[in-house]
């Protein structure tokens, strides 16, 4: 079966000469549809860069990124953005939410940007799952870290993307909230049939994934 996410000989270097940093060094990755893949590595190993590439946020120096078999970097910037908002949901470590919008607005923002109407049933279902039904009008500034990440998860799910990319989503959370957020994420992804690629430096969290990819100095060490 076709892999939903693939990289072929991906390369991204920063700087030059003595300052050369090989963020991604000839990396090949393959993710099957519906998989939960944990990407593990130390700080500076290039995990974030890899995730950004997978999501089309940054262009590689060479190599390809194939999503559902399509080379995404052949798309023009605008089409790439459209692709991003329909296929991929992003969750970052922090500052996920737009401070001037309330919880509901943050969640439906990608849908709105796509010009589509909100499927209220579906979104409310997600909201209930993350346990924020009573705080739909709250502003992000009033939410705790865990709550903010829940909202971020809801946003990532609301537009029904095929792939969810999470960059250390639990990095700023305490261990209890961490377990909860990851459980939630895993459960939702399974239920809605999505693929999840999550970066984490915590190998405990990585356990919960179907598969673990270890990155060191821009290269895949274990898969």
């Amino acid at each position, binding site marked *: 079966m076709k892999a939903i996410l693939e990289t072929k000989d991906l390369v991204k270097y920063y700087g030059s000469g003595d300052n050369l940093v090989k963020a991604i060094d000839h990396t090949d990755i393959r993710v099957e549809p519906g998989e939960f893949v944990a990407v593990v590595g130390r700080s500076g190993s290039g995990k974030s860069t890899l995730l950004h590439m997978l999501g089309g946020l940054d262009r590689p120096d060479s190599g390809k990124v194939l999503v559902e078999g399509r080379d995404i970097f052949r798309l023009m910037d605008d089409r790439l953005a459209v692709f991003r908002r329909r296929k991929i949901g992003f969750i970052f470590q922090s500052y996920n939410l737009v401070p001037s919008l309330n919880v509901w607005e943050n969640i439906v923002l990608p849908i709105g940007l796509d010009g589509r109407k909100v499927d209220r049933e579906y979104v409310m279902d997600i909201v209930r799952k993350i346990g924020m039904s009573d705080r739909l009008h709250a502003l992000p500034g009033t939410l705790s870290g865990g709550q903010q990440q829940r909202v971020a998860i809801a946003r990532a799910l609301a537009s029904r993307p095929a792939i969810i990319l999470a960059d250390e989503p639990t990095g700023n959370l305490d261990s209890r909230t961490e377990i909860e957020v990851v459980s939630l994420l895993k459960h939702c992804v399974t239920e809605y049939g999505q693929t999840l690629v999550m970066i984490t430096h915590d190998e*405990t969290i990585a356990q919960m994934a179907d598969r673990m990819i270890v990155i060191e100095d821009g290269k895949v060490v274990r898969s």
Partner: protein
Amino acid sequence: MDTGKRKRIALAAGLFFLALLVGLFLTGRAVWQEYENTARQMAALTRQAPEEEAVFAGILTGKIVEDNEAAAKTGMELLEKYGYDLKDSFWGGALPGMAGGMALLLAAGLAACAGLAWHSMRLKREARERADYLEEKLKEETVRNQKMEAELRREEQETKSLITDISHQLKTPVASLKMSYEIEDSTELSAEETEEFRRKEREDVERLEHLLQAFTQMSKLETGMIRLKPEKAGVKSTLARAVAGAYAKAVDKNISIETEEFTDVAVVHDPGWTAEAIGNVLDNGVKYAPVGTCITIRVSELVSYVMIEVEDEGPGIPAEEQHRIFQRFYRGKAEAVRKEEGSGVGLYLTRRILEEQGGTVCVKNGRTGGSKFVITLPKE
């Protein structure tokens, strides 16, 4: 069409009609002014020379006309003498009104056209986008279907490999038994030797029994013969069942199982299977923990989940094996583990059961060097 759009269209239409009306009004007024001016001229001329009334009427209505170029030129010169030239002709009279009115009508018309053109372009674009979107969705659906097919095929494969694995695992104790029998048949054994062999055979049979039990469970689950029936029930009773199951073996090794006090929480789970799952974890702990140690169970309520922590004082699990232990048939590489009986299936089952119910399980290093298993179950 939502109200915002409707309002905007109403506004645009209103403006358009207003412009139209104003244009018409100006034009009409200009025409009327022109007529009135002519009338005034008539009156003024006639007042000066009443006897020429008919001539004036003829000139003003256009009946009497000086046709040639020269006449126009003479006229212009005369007018200029009195300071009236082209510029004045423009600004006087009804011309500005007319021009203004016409311009307004034209502008209104152009604006309407532009508006319609823009609107139709937008409609076209929207239609195109919708088409693109539907195409994408179709592709996704196809992928999903493919996945389901693959899933089915995988299950088929799994069942096949399951059978292979089970038969492989069973082979060893059966072979051992067979060998025992053959030796007994073919050789004269002393009473002690016979005793020894008997003991070994008993062990083998126990081992077979053990394996059979585990395999039965697992295959039932794997092949979908048993379905989990989640219901909302208190987690306390389930936990009690699990503890009860492992109690006997714990007492044997003088290991105490302590549960910290907690308020019961209702969780959506299949009590039987969940108890089984937790029981496997406890079994694991009892099996590998040294004599006289303690296994602690802690239950806490999170926002959407209930968290159950099971901590033992055993040897712990090395980091590189921590994510492997939940794999099917995996047995740890450490000496202590190798020594014990085990099918490598218990934790795999635990994970499958919990994840089917929307929960999770993972292992961390305990505070005193042992292992801490963290189980979550959804509250809703």
